[in-house]
């Protein structure tokens, strides 16, 4: 990943201090998140509802 982009993501997440102390762990986290990107298919129907259903008070 482009280092400038990586640093920008870390700043946006508020993790600069954490990166200063544990740079390897932050890199691992970013890599894990990037591996996840694209793993979830976008539904063909753009109005598809997510779970949980928005039903007050009934649960499952």
């Amino acid at each position: 990943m482009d280092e400038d982009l990586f640093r920008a993501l870390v700043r946006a997440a508020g993790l600069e201090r954490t990166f200063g102390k544990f740079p390897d762990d932050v890199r691992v986290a970013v890599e894990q998140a990037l591996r996840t990107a694209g793993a979830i298919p976008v539904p063909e129907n753009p109005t598809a509802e997510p779970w949980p259903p928005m039903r007050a008070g009934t649960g499952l």
Partner: protein
Amino acid sequence: MSELAFLSASEISRAFAQKKLSPVELTQALLARIEHLQPTLHAFIRIDGDAALDAARVAEREITAGRIRGPLHGVPIGLKDIIDVAGLPTTAHSRVLIDNIAKSDAVVTAKLRQAGAVILGKLSTHEFAIGGPSHDLPWPAARNPWNPDHHPGGSSSGSGAGLAGGLFPLALGSDTGGSVRNPASACGIVGLKPTYGLVSRRGVFPLSFTLDHIGPMTRNVADNALLLDCIAGHDPEDPGSAASQARHFGRELGLSVKGLRIGFIRHFHETDMPAHPEVTAALEIVERVLEAEGALVGTVKLPSLAEFSAVNRVILTSEAWAIHAKWLREQPENYGELARQRLMPGAFIPAGDYINAQRRRLTMIEAVNAALRKYDVLMCASSMDPASNIHDAVETARTYPRQARTPFNVTGHPALAMGAGFSSAGLPLSVQFIGRYFADATVLRVAAAFEQVTVWHMRRPPLG
């Protein structure tokens, strides 16, 4: 002593009623065994011996006076250390919460106290129920009683280790991606992730709000039903609590599986994530045993394990980040390395991906519901491998995600894992049964039918 250590809750309750055993006698015996085995198993973060003996004395007086509260009265239990017990620290096995004294009982704790159960203490977990077996935390990782060089599974590690090691007959764990069923599989015990919303999560430190379940862990199926009877019930103050009246979870125990339709999700362990040959062989034996008992076993196809796993991961890490962001920014040094790495990815997942995961989740729920319209119960692998060597971080990291439990955190269906034999190295093998929403009793029925005609649950680990 070993004889007392492996009594079931039902046997204990009977022995109390017949005055052949007293709660104080049993609690003292188990506390002595815990003291003896804690240096080997590390199942406990905190042993609360004095409070346990006080509770046992109260139970003894009440039982002697004929005021028996129910089947858990005077029965010892251990609680995963993310569950609040008033006045004790809830540490989540983390330095972050080392001084976090619970102000009140979790709902499940209060229900156990009401039932007269004797709380022995707080049990080891992976840090915040996600970190994995770590060696950089204030307390050591729990070990597997079948071979202490091996991982007992997690994240409810102490619960599984303590049950298999004969430290207590009952325990509670939590399950967000399989954390009740993993130690059940690794330790050869019974762990149920109930239907989502059946058990209140209030007073239990969350990992992922829409995936978290609290579940009973026991050495046999009947005890599991008893413990679920105690902890289940609607909680109006838990937003995820279901308005279900489901009760009496042991009501189907003893019924045969004759004519029951069981859908075997073979592709999970055959092609999606090919299992260790001994796991595959054990599953084939389970299938033959159930067929011999009269069940009608067919084959079920669901979305792939990779799809389920991706959905689980996006949801879990996103929700967990929302919980941990402040601490990870301000005190990252108080987390262990594994938890730090596993909790931060949510910071880098776009909100749109989270919503798409929740949308995909709905179609996965529909797929499992469709299978459960055709079949009464589903079965599949739980762990794809026997427990890894805990000293081998590479092998543990390789085998830990090789499992088929996360699908049912994603869908919320009840899912039970239990022992189903042993590997050539003497480590437990396992199977998983899944049921319709709120048909937890039927899942327990199938598990009990399998247990009744097999001998695996009678074997004891080679501990002193």
